[in-house]
């Protein structure tokens, strides 16, 4: 997937498109796509775009007029593909291309020498392919353990397998931020406006300049000794509610979408995995998570309504991406498995849930064999204890709970294997 480029162009731009395709193939890429009008089935077009690693759009006046080209670009964006724009002609400032994508990142094929522009396109494609995976923790139902599992699974991957991890707290309840940081630290970060709210806001005093997006991350492993790979967080705050209540204009949301993609691109360039902790329900924030993610992890508790949330999640992802979810893009992780849930009245809830998922045609192949047992070290109970180094709050750094720690390490490794490009 990663070595494939989808090249989209209008019939009028065939000449520059052929030059770009030849240069990409010379650089080892396999180029698919072509004149978007040549495909009469939009569903097949979306499917093909989703299977490519990078989407290259040949932009021109003809492309600006094309509704199908707009649809193809939307499919690339909704499926989390890196989009490279090669401007083959002058573009309007208020056309859909300039409004949907960041003009600062366009490769102008007219202003610069052809060889220089082609080298820039090849460089952008290489940068987009050589990167970590983006994993979204998602379930439409709340309380299944998305946040605590995100923190602990990937702390295990960081500590046991030395993986560089970047978290993004996309939940307005910002429980992941609260899990790692004390109220005092959160207050200081919020005062400096170094939270996701500043990223999603393009205007106003709370907006963070686009070039500073990668600089707002907070290190979560501050141990002095030894060299540690990155373990960091883009904190959330309660003001993210504005993006779930539909009080923001469509223009604000479009800008937030672009800026979120820029943040994810900056983080994935330097980490093995970018973990997005999403909110339950289906909102604009959920859409951001789904469109950016290469892989979705859905934690499920052995209970009835958890499975309903799983079915809804599949529908929501299909709606956002415009195509059915492929089983390899998805993992289901059984969380809180506990022998005590077995009783003469209810039967064995763990076994029932496991069998229900395994026998489902879609979810069966996505179920991870390593389950997370119910454990005291995974409880986020109130405590009088505190940590100067945030990673010390994770189960992996606390005393006891060996079965849970081993299960977390195995499950994290399995997820990262499945999410690898």
């Amino acid at each position, binding site marked *: 997937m990663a070595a494939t480029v989808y090249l989209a162009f209008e019939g009028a731009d065939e000449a520059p498109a052929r030059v770009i395709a030849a240069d990409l193939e010379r650089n080892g890429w396999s180029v698919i796509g072509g004149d978007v009008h040549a495909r009469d089935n939009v569903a097949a077009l979306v499917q093909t775009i989703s299977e490519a690693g990078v989407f290259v759009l040949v932009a021109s006046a003809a492309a600006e007029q094309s509704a199908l080209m707009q649809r193809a670009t939307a499919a690339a964006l909704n499926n989390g593909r890196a989009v490279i724009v090669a401007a083959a002609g002058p573009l309007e400032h208020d056309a859909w291309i300039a409004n949907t994508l960041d003009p600062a990142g366009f490769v102008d094929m007219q202003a610069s020498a052809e060889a220089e522009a082609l080298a820039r396109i090849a460089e952008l494609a290489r940068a987009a392919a050589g990167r970590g995976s983006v994993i979204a923790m998602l379930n439409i139902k709340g309380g299944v353990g998305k946040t605590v599992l995100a923190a602990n699974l990937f702390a295990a991957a960081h500590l046991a397998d030395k993986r560089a991890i970047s978290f993004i707290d996309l939940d307005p309840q910002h429980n992941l931020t*609260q899990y790692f940081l*004390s*109220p*005092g*630290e959160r207050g200081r970060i919020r005062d400096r406006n170094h939270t996701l709210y500043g990223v999603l806001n393009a205007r106003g005093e709370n907006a963070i300049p686009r070039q500073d997006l990668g600089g707002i991350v907070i290190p979560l492993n501050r*141990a*002095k*000794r030894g060299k540690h790979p990155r373990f960091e967080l883009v904190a959330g705050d309660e003001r993210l509610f504005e993006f779930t209540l539909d009080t923001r204009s469509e223009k604000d949301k479009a800008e937030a979408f672009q800026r979120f993609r820029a943040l994810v691109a900056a983080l994935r360039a330097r980490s093995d995995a970018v973990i997005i902790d999403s909110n339950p329900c289906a909102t604009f924030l959920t859409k951001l998570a789904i469109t950016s993610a290469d892989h979705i992890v859905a934690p499920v508790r052995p209970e009835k309504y958890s499975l309903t949330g799983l079915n809804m999640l599949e529908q929501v992802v299909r709606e956002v991406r415009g195509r059915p979810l492929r089983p390899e893009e998805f993992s289901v992780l059984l969380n809180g498995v506990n022998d005590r849930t077995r009783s003469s009245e209810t039967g064995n809830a763990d076994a029932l849930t496991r069998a229900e998922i395994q026998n489902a045609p879609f979810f069966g192949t996505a179920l991870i064999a390593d389950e997370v047992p119910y454990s005291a070290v995974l409880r986020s109970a*109130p*405590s*009088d*204890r*505190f*940590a*100067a*180094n945030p990673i*010390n*709050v994770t189960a992996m*750094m*606390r005393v006891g709970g060996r079965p849970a720690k081993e299960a977390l390490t195995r499950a994290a490794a399995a997820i990262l294997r499945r999410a690898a490009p």
Partner: protein
Amino acid sequence: MNDDEKKFLQSMLGKRSRTEVKRLFALVRAHSDRALLAASQARTTKAKRAPDRLLRDVQRALRPVMAPAREKAEMLVDHMAKGRRRKTSTAPKGLSDALRQLRAAHSEAQIAAGAHSLAARLAQRYGDRDSVV
């Protein structure tokens, strides 16, 4: 007695005098193996170390801090070194190692006070549980 047995006896008795050897044989005839073994084994139990009260005090003061002992030790050494020109060059391996380093420059009362003030400073910066308004 065969040659092997003779050799074994000579190697065990070494160059002891005839009187010593005769006394040993008499002892062996008079007592059981168990009594002889029990009497011959020297007491190997070491004298119990006096408990390090300072270590216990420091551990108790830093208990609310969630961190491995090595990190707590580093924080304590750094905290005690604040305002001093000369700083320790080697990082402590644990709390007892940190106390060994600190005892060279501070009194026990100063170290105990340092641990309590470190805990208070960390609680002020990283503590404060979420409360309900």
